[in-house]
């Protein structure tokens, strides 16, 4: 009996010993967790994000990893559902024990994750749009995309240049559209704008002619802003053209992908929107520091996936880069140190713009990151 247990003990010790040697030889991988809406209604966000994360993690690993350690990516598909996102985040934290989380394609999924990462103390870089993610500032939460508020400000400054003061708004009554709508109202006074018509629709409405007719019949509308993403902006754009409304139509950065132009077809001609430099990579001035970065990213993405990179793909690229450079500077994966380093990100030139994070700003982008873009002949054309 005793000999048997001794044997077991000895073999256990041997196993433990070899395990430690093994660990010392090959450093433990850096674990990056991701939860993305790779399928479902928000897959136009999550699918390119997933491709980008997988591609660049593989490339980092081929080049020897970070700090000589390989990167291990654990990726889950939340299908755009916040409750699924919440259980996958628990899984990433508790079971996969990741060092940093990059993900959250939608604001809903991100907000479901926020209390969990805050409680567990894990650096989290979100890829979603709304301003509530970083305002008020949350210790462990960062984000890469521009906010809806910035888009509203950019649109207003463009309107101001054109002498427009009265505008109408038509927005999705949910998520991104609703948040954009509210942020627009908050900043309109700063630009001396007045809202004269305010219409909403549900994200899956196949037709918004009724709402647009109301806007058309409202006196004094000089421009119209549409807040929404996915199918709905294309529906609005088509109906807008059918009704022959003469006032210029502004879309948000939520449509900054070729898919929108494909869906809206000819009706998209003349639509203006704020977008990151990525969608007009080749048109940027050579003096623009961002140009080299976005042209390179656009080229690499097209080579691999035979499609133009949307800004959403860029958000994932920026998130991964910011996380990995922070780990590099921190000299390891100590979570508090990595968090501090992410917060100290200064002058990182990404696809979204130049990032200057600070303890009061966990996004680090300003309005210069946005370009005004007009759709001409089925393509985005720089227009500021």
């Amino acid at each position: 009996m005793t000999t048997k247990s001794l044997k077991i003990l000895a073999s256990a010790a041997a196993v433990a010993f070899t395990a430690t040697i093994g660990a010392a030889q090959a450093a433990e991988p850096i674990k990056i967790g991701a939860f993305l809406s790779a399928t479902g209604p928000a897959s136009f966000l999550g699918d390119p994000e997933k491709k980008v994360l997988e591609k660049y993690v593989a490339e980092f690993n081929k080049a020897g990893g970070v700090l000589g350690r390989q990167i291990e990516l654990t990726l889950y598909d939340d299908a755009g559902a916040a409750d699924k996102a919440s259980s996958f985040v628990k899984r990433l934290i508790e079971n996969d024990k990741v060092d940093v989380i990059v993900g959250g394609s939608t604001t809903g999924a991100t907000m479901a994750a926020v209390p969990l990462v805050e409680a567990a103390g894990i650096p989290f870089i979100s890829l979603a749009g709304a301003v509530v993610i970083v305002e008020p500032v949350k210790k462990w939460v960062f984000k890469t995309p521009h906010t809806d508020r910035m888009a509203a400000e950019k649109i207003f400054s463009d309107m101001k240049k054109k002498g427009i003061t009265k505008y109408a708004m038509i927005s999705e009554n949910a998520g991104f559209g609703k948040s954009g709508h509210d942020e627009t109202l908050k900043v309109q006074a700063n630009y001396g704008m007045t809202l004269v018509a305010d219409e909403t629709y549900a994200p899956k409405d196949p037709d918004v002619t009724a709402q647009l007719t109301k806007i058309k019949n409202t006196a004094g509308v000089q421009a119209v802003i549409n807040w929404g993403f996915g199918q709905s902006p294309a529906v609005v754009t088509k109906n807008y053209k059918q009704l022959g409304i003469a006032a210029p139509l502004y879309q948000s950065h939520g449509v900054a992908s070729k898919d929108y132009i494909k869906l809206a077809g000819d009706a998209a001609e003349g639509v203006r929107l704020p977008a990151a430099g990525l969608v007009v990579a080749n048109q940027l001035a050579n003096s623009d520091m961002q140009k080299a970065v976005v042209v390179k990213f656009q080229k690499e993405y097209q080579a691999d996936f035979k499609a133009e990179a949307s800004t959403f793909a860029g958000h994932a690229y920026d998130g991964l880069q910011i996380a990995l450079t922070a780990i590099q500077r921190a000299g390891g994966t100590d979570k508090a140190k990595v968090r501090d380093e992410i917060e100290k990100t200064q002058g990182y030139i990404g696809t979204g713009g130049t990032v200057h994070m600070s303890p009061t700003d966990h996004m680090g982008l300003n309005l210069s990151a946005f370009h005004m873009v007009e759709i001409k002949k089925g393509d985005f054309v720089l227009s500021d």
Partner: protein
Amino acid sequence: MASTSRWAGLGALAVFLAVLPQVLPNNYYVDVAVLAGFNAIVCVGLNLLIGYAGQISLGHAGFFGLGAYSSAILVTHYGWPPLAALLAGALLVGLLAFAIARPILKLKGHYLAMATLGIGIIISIIINTEAQITGGPDGIAAGNFTLGGFELKGERAWYWVIAVLLLVTVWLATNLVDSPVGRALRALHGSEVGAEVVGVDTTRYKVLVFVVSAVIASIAGSLFAHYTSQLTPTKADFFKSIELVTMVVFGGMASTFGALVGAAFLTMLPQVLTVFEDYEPIILGGIMMGTMIFMPRGLVPTISAFLTRRRS
């Protein structure tokens, strides 16, 4: 005989629930167990309706959602204590279920399924569109469940609450099934005309069991609102209702433990299948189709019938 097997089943479940957290390696597994527990509670209630009364509800997620949102809204907007909000939600759902069931259950056939389908979708639309109070598609956070000075926090604490609640629900359900009410229900399931001939007030029993199962769903919903960090309308939509019916049918109709197994199995399966990434929906669909084709009575009744055959 029936009574001893009932206590044996309940005892086995209690032992299982007590041992389970000791073998779960970390809180993620506990979280999945808690979610399975929530589904199981709703399914045991729903099984009373589907399995014993022979009626289908396609709106149980609506009742779950109504309970959840009642709690979330009363607690966050009006500062009610969570327990009071839970009871108010249950009362509301009970009255609503009674109001729908009373006229509709007098009709024969699957009218209840149609009515519940409608109610479920209406509830889901209201939750989605009344964003000022419900938070819309982005959801709402109900905060932690507090009672007196005690705050319920963390997966493990929740586990024990849900485990006890599940035991109580199963105890209630098995009691009901073995009572005169249960016998009346089974008679009704077998043949409605036959049941009426022997003097069973079929409408009354159908209404009773419908209201009971809706209230169980509402209570589970209220607690879920406090458990989850962000309550979203997906928990109240039509697909969730279908998922609940699937759990009951998959586990085995007219078997309380079947409903338990179905709920646990179908909660865990998507988590297990994430390793297959893109093939996940295909494999999930395949497993369910296979079960329905080869075990049309559901998992638990088929297996228990097989075991009794082997023994004899």
